[in-house]
């Protein structure tokens, strides 16, 4: 299911810790309540974003999806900036 989002981050090809680091940089530029979509190929990013959501005070992990695109697994995360 496609979710609506305000900004998109293409984190394909990035390795740990870059999907999380770049997502933080994008989130810093967002307004409270806006949603960032992150598309990653790093399979660790699934657990990394869950770990982040556990300690985060200013973001919320809305949804995570794994999509198969021509044999490549894409890990998609939807993150909402909090107040």
């Amino acid at each position, binding site marked *: 299911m496609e979710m609506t989002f305000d900004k998109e981050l293409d984190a394909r*090809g*990035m*390795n*740990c*810790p*870059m999907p*999380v*680091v770049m*997502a*933080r*940089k994008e989130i810093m530029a967002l307004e409270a309540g806006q949603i960032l979509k992150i598309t990653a190929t790093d399979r660790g990013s699934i657990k*990394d974003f869950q*770990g*982040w959501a556990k*300690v*985060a*005070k*200013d*973001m919320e992990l809305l949804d995570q999806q794994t999509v198969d695109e021509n044999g490549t697994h894409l890990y998609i995360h939807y993150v909402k900036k909090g107040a």
Partner: protein
Amino acid sequence: MPVDNIATTPGPAETTGLGERLDALESRIAELEEAQPEDKVSMVVFSGDLDRVLASFVIATGAAAMGQKVDMFFTFWGLTALKKDTQLSDKRLFQKMMGVMAPGSSKNLPASRMNYFGIGAKMLRAMMKQENVQSLEEMMQLARDLGVTFIACDMSQNVMGIRDEELIDDIEHGGVGTFLGSALTAKSSLFI
């Protein structure tokens, strides 16, 4: 008066001293809040090995991205990761020797295993590049962008004869009290 109203209406005996008990409770809560660890990670970077320093910066940038304050204390061999320059004039013999033999900057850090006079470290960097992993220098810049604090240990700087001018700019200086002040109020502290 209905029977069930009797239990919910406090009598004079139950309200006496309630104000003091509330005050005591409030000050206890304030004490507990003060004792709560902060959203912070404190690290000692003791090692000057490329792989270990790299691991420190992966954790540091990750933690900073996750909204944690990060303090990194560089001591002994870890200081070589912060070097930008080597000056030999006006140094004692051993400190001069150390200046010549120790890595002159982060670019010259050895690998902890299979270094073989620097070939191992070069190989490791090439492998990281192939796998699209950020270089140590890029990681360090990212850490700075995310607000990670770098603190150089004064005592080891003196022992190793490393002057402030030989280290990169915009770093803090401190000692064991600085580290413990940070570590004891942090949620996590690491020695690498």
